[in-house]
């Protein structure tokens, strides 16, 4: 497979994940949450990972950050970041790797701020611990950082509850890029926010990305949002990757029935009203084979031609 060679812009991969397998080990049986997943992210590239809850996308993010806890276990594969083997890092190396090389914004990141410390104190903390600046210098940089995400530096003295949800999320994003990481992982960064705020934050991330040139691993279930932001994307189902290509290609020409179902789940805002179907209850794909290249740069897991989604007669509740 040559998936790792297809990337946007420069072909120098920042992150390379190969055959990653993660298992949740139970007493009686174990579950494979991520099953032989491979992808790479180039310098300055935005790579999207789409899929529903439980498909393993967050597990991948946590594996990259080495944040997996028992009973989850990386059972195979490799993750390399800028040529370094992430899975072999010592605790001290990991400490530097997290935040300086790779930063992550979690789904409910706005709730991960400490409620009893001001925003300023929390940002200063990053600079004093990771970069070794003096307190005064850190405070100055913290002010700059807030300006970067268009929050008034006077807000450094505010407590998290004094900021709106959107502002808190922006503050968290500012903190994530504080040390100029080369990869930013965004795990559903706007799920809890209103559309207008979501749009503003996504625009801000785009702008920051252009300015600072970091790569992004963007995780969401919102296909429209993903297509708008990402250069390349992959769709996951049940721990397997079912399709990966340039985002525009996936949008224009989704090949796998599951990708089609996900796309169909979002009604369009323009054009005539067409009945959509989505994925009917109970339809499951099993034993998804490895990806195969169907068009240049477009990889799809082979599926049977009579896969359930395409057969629209079976669709219960579908619009007629």
């Amino acid at each position, binding site marked *: 497979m040559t998936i790792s060679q297809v990337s946007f812009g420069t072909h120098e991969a920042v992150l390379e994940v190969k055959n990653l397998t993660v298992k949740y080990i139970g007493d009686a049986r174990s579950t494979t949450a991520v099953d032989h997943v491979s992808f790479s992210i180039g310098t300055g590239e935005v790579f999207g990972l789409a899929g*529903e*809850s439980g498909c393993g996308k967050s597990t991948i993010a946590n594996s990259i950050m080495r944040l997996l806890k028992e009973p989850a276990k990386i059972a195979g594969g490799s993750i390399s970041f800028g040529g370094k083997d992430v899975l072999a890092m010592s605790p001290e190396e990991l400490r530097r790797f997290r935040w300086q090389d790779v930063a992550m914004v979690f789904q409910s990141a706005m709730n991960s701020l400490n409620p009893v410390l001001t925003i300023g104190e929390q940002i200063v903390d990053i600079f004093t611990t990771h970069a070794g600046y003096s307190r005064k210098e850190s405070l100055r940089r913290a002010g700059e950082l807030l300006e970067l995400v268009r929050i008034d530096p006077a807000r450094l003295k505010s407590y998290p509850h004094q900021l709106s949800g959107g502002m808190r999320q922006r503050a968290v994003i500012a903190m994530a890029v504080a040390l100029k990481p080369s990869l930013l992982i965004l795990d559903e960064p706007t799920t809890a926010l*209103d*559309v*207008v705020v*979501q*749009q*503003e934050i*996504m*625009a801000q991330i785009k702008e920051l990305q252009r300015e600072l040139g970091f790569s992004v691993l963007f995780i969401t*279930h*919102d*296909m*429209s*949002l993903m*297509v*708008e932001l990402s250069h390349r994307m992959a769709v996951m189902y049940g721990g397997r990757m079912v399709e990966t290509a340039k985002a*525009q290609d996936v*949008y224009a020409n989704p090949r796998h029935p*599951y990708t089609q*179902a*996900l796309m*169909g*789940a*979002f*009604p*369009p*805002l*323009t*054009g*005539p*009203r*067409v*009945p*959509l*179907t*989505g*994925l*009917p*209850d109970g339809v499951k794909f099993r034993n998804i084979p490895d990806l195969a290249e169907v068009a240049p740069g477009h990889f799809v897991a082979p599926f049977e031609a009579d896969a359930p989604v395409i057969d629209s007669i079976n669709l*219960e*509740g*579908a*619009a*007629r």
Partner: protein
Amino acid sequence: MSHSLMTSSAVSGTGTPALEIRGLGKTFPIGGLFSRDSVRALHGIDLSIGKGEIVALVGESGSGKSTLARCVARLEKPSSGEILIDGVDVLKRDRFQASRAFRSQLQMVFQDPFGSLNPAHRMDHFLRRSLAIHGRSGASERETQRRLEELMTTVGLQADMLNSYPHELSGGQRQRVAIARALAVEPQVILADEPTSMLDVSVRIGVLNLMRKLRDEQGISMLYITHDLASARYLADRTAVMFAGELVEEGESLDLLANPAHPYTQLLVSAVPDPARAGSYDPVRRAELRQAVMASTHCTFQDDPNQACSSEEPVRHQVGDPQNRHWVRCHLYRPWAAAGSHALASEPVPSSHPASNAQEEAPA
């Protein structure tokens, strides 16, 4: 376009509306026990839903759409106004709390199907209770059982799921059971408060399709409350936009979202991610809209001879073809300003492009 999509809007609009809300207001007291301050959550809401019509209520969190639903469902006591079901003012009829008769006319479907079903009971129990409480059980046990199975089929579930517990079902299946429970009572109106926002994306469409099927086949009216404009456009015949406790714009869904007249609606429409118009985002335009939104609630009368609004309250202006029943209330709206008839006063009259962002990139 599919045929069934067209029928209901033609049918609706005749006869008594299934649900009519007149001048509904709600204020919440704030501050301590002796404080007289209050916050105005709803103000002068007028909304009617015809028989067999789905009306979507959209707006951001905090705009008051859930408060409206709670007032209409009588989980909250409105401060002023009337709620008419089938032409009867239910606030006068049952003065203190909702009666059983009212509950059998109007049912709710809530956002969280995980919280709205008691985990200790089987599906059978929920539906059976609905039937029993409202006196709709059959004469015999067999008759009741048949009704239960019928309900399950209607919402697209297998009858043998009656014996399952909530944890054995997926989110989509649970929401279908919640809908079946509402249907058991044979209501005229269903209030659905964000019924799909907690479901996995691939099953959302299925639930929307089910709601549409109920409208088409059983003529049930629905108030569909959502923050997702695309789904409102997909499902609802008409869409009403709520901002700061007031309805600011309403119209036939396709027309409203294609030609939004109120700056707030334009802002909402422009914020929806849609790859078909990727790159249409313009921060300058966005900032203008934001300002216009802020101004629209408290702008003063500008002493313009053509201005129909009073100094205090904006009035409803009709937008475009009367057939679309599209109106907006906003001081900034100038009905005469452009041939496109949805220009804002704060901006120069656009030459050939319509005003909204959404329009510019949209394929015809």
